[in-house]
């Protein structure tokens, strides 16, 4: 099973350039319903106002990091099942393990390409 093109996606990153890159890659992959947030707290507010089918989040942001956002999402019964992909430059093993334990669905290390993004989205919805 692959992700439906109408899937509402929330991109969370504090760099507008990276949001623009991911938005364009998603557009190339057929996803048009894309929203954005500049950090974890803004993302959480948006998620409590709208149901997203997928969150694609950076790790290192202030004031709330992607890791904190992930833990908040997983501990909230209303949001807990939202698929969550971490897209980050944090490439230490302990980061990946910590994210896995916190309930991340997949993990992409920057820089990445459209094929990697596609395969990870597919893996999330196939699993």
């Amino acid at each position, binding site marked *: 099973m692959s992700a439906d093109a109408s899937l509402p996606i929330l991109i969370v990153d504090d760099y507008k*350039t990276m949001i*623009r*890159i991911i938005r*364009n890659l998603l557009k190339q992959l057929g996803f048009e319903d894309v929203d954005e947030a500049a950090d974890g707290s803004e993302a959480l507010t948006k998620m409590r106002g709208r149901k997203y089918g997928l969150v694609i989040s950076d*790790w*290192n942001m202030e004031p709330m*990091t992607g*890791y*904190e956002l992930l833990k908040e999402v997983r501990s909230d019964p209303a949001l807990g099942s939202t698929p969550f992909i971490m897209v980050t*430059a*944090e*490439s*230490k*093993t*302990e*980061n*990946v*393990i*910590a994210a*896995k*334990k916190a309930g*991340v669905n*997949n*993990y*992409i*290390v*920057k820089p*990445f390409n459209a094929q*990697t993004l596609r395969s990870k989205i597919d893996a999330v919805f196939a699993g």
Partner: protein
Amino acid sequence: MALIDDNALRRELKDIANYIHSLRREIGALQANDLRHKRIPAAGQELAAIVKATEQASNTIMECAEAAMAADPSDPAAYKAFVADRMTVVFEACGFQDITGQRVAKVVEMLEHIEARVSRFAEATGAEDAHGPASDKEALEAERKLRLFIHGPQLDGEGVGQDEIDEIIEDQPASATQTDIDLLFA
């Protein structure tokens, strides 16, 4: 006996005076005000200019790509001319790499200058580093980074690649093993 003590005292005071004189000379050579008011702010300005230039170049390149992807291909000649025009702008935007390279070289030169002065001062005064963070702010930031696993981008050869990440994501058991726990606290 009192005369010997006086001489010893004079020698001690002379040594202290010489040390203070030497310390003042080394503090002067450090040119701390020059570092604080000129060189470090100048390095900061160069780095800020690099961030701005790379952001502008990225935006220009992405605007061109977006325009090319959205262009109407029904008139092949016009489409080709439009895409060629946008690609020329992309090449122009890539010129940022030359300028940022020169700016980075200036920052490296400033850092080497600062390093030389601080090294000379540390050697001349026999300075030893105090243990722990230099301020409460630094301590809080270090604690936050440790707690939230914030390391930033790794250099080539450090960190793990996408393939290794995929293995961890696919194979890592949900419950923590001692090895996992050790890794978290490594």
